[in-house]
């Protein structure tokens, strides 16, 4: 293990390490702690210039209640859910199939098709912006959740296919050969042999894509406008315009907007990190 385990160091060093840990963490999360503190302060604190002092009163319920019941926030949140969940399902389904095809079968253009997905996944969004916006307009899907979902599914399929293909590659191939010898149809091999083995990859991708799509901002402002279809990342800017300089409400709004992926991360941490670090070790 590197660095040398702290248990082997002197007691002084051990104590130093254990006190340094929380201090480092507080410094690391300082901007966030500040926002959390803002979000429970009363409005009067800000007008009186009490930005960083002790909160004048504990206004957690008042501020968050304002966000939930007196703004467009719940609608934006709902939009985000209605955009994110179908995208996750669509992208995972498409890429499970594509990953199966690329991971199991040997055919001439296999690597080229695979590289097409990988390369497409890295391109800057801006090179797609004008044509995709046009296409969405032509299909009559501008400013709809469907328009965003379709694009997200397509784009995320690149990353997901990379992930799925590499995962399926690592599965024991004799299993599939055995099924073929038994005369099992290819699509049944996919459904009954490969898919059950892919559960960890499906879970990891689902949480990752959920986070990516929930946090998307660029496509939200390119393909939608207004509270009918906009997800919460775009909505927060209009929310902030509505509550200009009301830091307690803007902070509370930001925390609410950030919460779903945070919960997702803490609940599904194992899958999340497995997904992110795929390929980080041999």
């Amino acid at each position, binding site marked *: 293990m590197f660095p040398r385990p702290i248990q082997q160091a002197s007691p002084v060093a051990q104590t130093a390490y254990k006190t340094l840990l929380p201090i480092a963490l507080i410094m690391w999360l300082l901007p966030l702690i500040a926002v959390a503190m803002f979000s429970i302060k009363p409005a009067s604190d800000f007008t009186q210039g009490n930005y960083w002092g002790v909160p004048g009163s504990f206004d957690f319920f008042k501020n968050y209640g304002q966000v939930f019941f007196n703004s467009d926030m719940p609608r934006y949140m709902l939009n985000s859910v209605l955009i994110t969940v179908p995208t996750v399902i669509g992208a995972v389904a498409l890429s499970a199939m594509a990953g199966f095809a690329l991971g199991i079968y040997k055919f001439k253009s296999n690597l080229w098709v695979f590289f097409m997905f990988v390369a497409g996944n890295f391109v800057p969004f801006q090179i797609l912006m004008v044509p995709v916006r046009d296409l969405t307009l032509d299909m009559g899907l501008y400013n709809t959740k469907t328009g965003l979902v379709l694009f997200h599914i397509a784009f995320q399929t690149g990353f997901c296919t990379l992930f799925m293909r590499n995962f399926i590659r690592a599965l024991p191939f004799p299993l599939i050969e055995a099924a073929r010898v038994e005369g099992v149809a290819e699509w049944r091999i996919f459904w009954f042999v490969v898919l059950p083995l892919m559960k960890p990859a499906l879970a990891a991708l689902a949480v990752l894509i959920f986070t990516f799509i929930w946090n998307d901002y660029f496509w939200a402002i390119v393909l939608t406008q207004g509270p009918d279809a906009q997800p919460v990342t775009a909505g927060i800017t209009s929310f902030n315009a509505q509550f200009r300089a009301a830091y307690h409400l803007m902070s509370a709004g930001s925390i609410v907007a*950030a919460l779903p992926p945070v919960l997702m991360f803490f609940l599904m941490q194992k899958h999340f990190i497995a997904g992110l670090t795929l390929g980080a070790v041999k």
Partner: protein
Amino acid sequence: MTVTALPDTTPPKRGWYKRNEIAVTPWLFLAPAILFFAVYVIIPIFQSFSISLYDWDGLGEAEFVGLGNYVELMDDSAFEVSLWNNLKWLLFYLLAIPAGLFIALFLNQTVTGIRIYKSLFFFPFVLSQVVVGLVFAWFYLPNEGLLSNMLGWFGFEPINVLGDPTLATYGIIAAGLWPQTAYCMILYLTGLNAVDPEQVEAARLDGAKGWKMLWYVIIPQLKPATFIAFVVTIIGALRSFDLISIMTNGGPFGQTRVLSFYMFEKALSEYGFRMGYGAAIAVVLFLIMLVFIAYFLWSMYQEDKGAR
């Protein structure tokens, strides 16, 4: 006919699909993904190339101008600023890699509660860039912000990071480094977990320790993690848009623009709908990215060959 008299020895007739099952199945499985990807990603890339040759406001008739948009870019000082800022982003964003390694080394211990520390250190990565941008924008507020207040405790003048044309870009990059460092940290933590303990022990017996051990024994073993950290950081640096849009909206005086933001500004914001000009900027950004994409693919290809 005599043929009919012969006994039928051929196996029962199978359909075309059955006979070609192995060859056809992969394409059936690939079809939906390829269709979506082609329509929304591959074809638009070529369309953007073509649009960049036109003068077009997105609604009316497009007028062919050849390389006119690119010629105009050469004299556009805002484009030049964006290009330089992209370079700054690329350079300074890479700091996330050593910073992430440093934190990973710091946290790679087994004391009580370390798992919670690790996830809390990783936490910023889960936040959307919009929230990170807001959080840092408030952190940087000229008078009320925490940064200026902390400077005040040490007797320094408050500074207006985002209002200062030279400082603003660095301020935004610092905000971007926060989640990116967390990402690199988690990559390295996973990598450190897989470092071969026997090699470390052997190196220790040979008297290696500290920096030497890190440089000659540990870092070479972390190569896969470093590669991924490098890929995601480069892509992230060139994709930077959200933070700039939220924190400064390109200002002050357009000094924090990068190509991705400038393109959006030209094509879709109050500065007018110059789709052709925007597409030309996007093409330049794409070509820069293409250098890296080609390198990544080449590395992956080498690896794939080695794997067989």
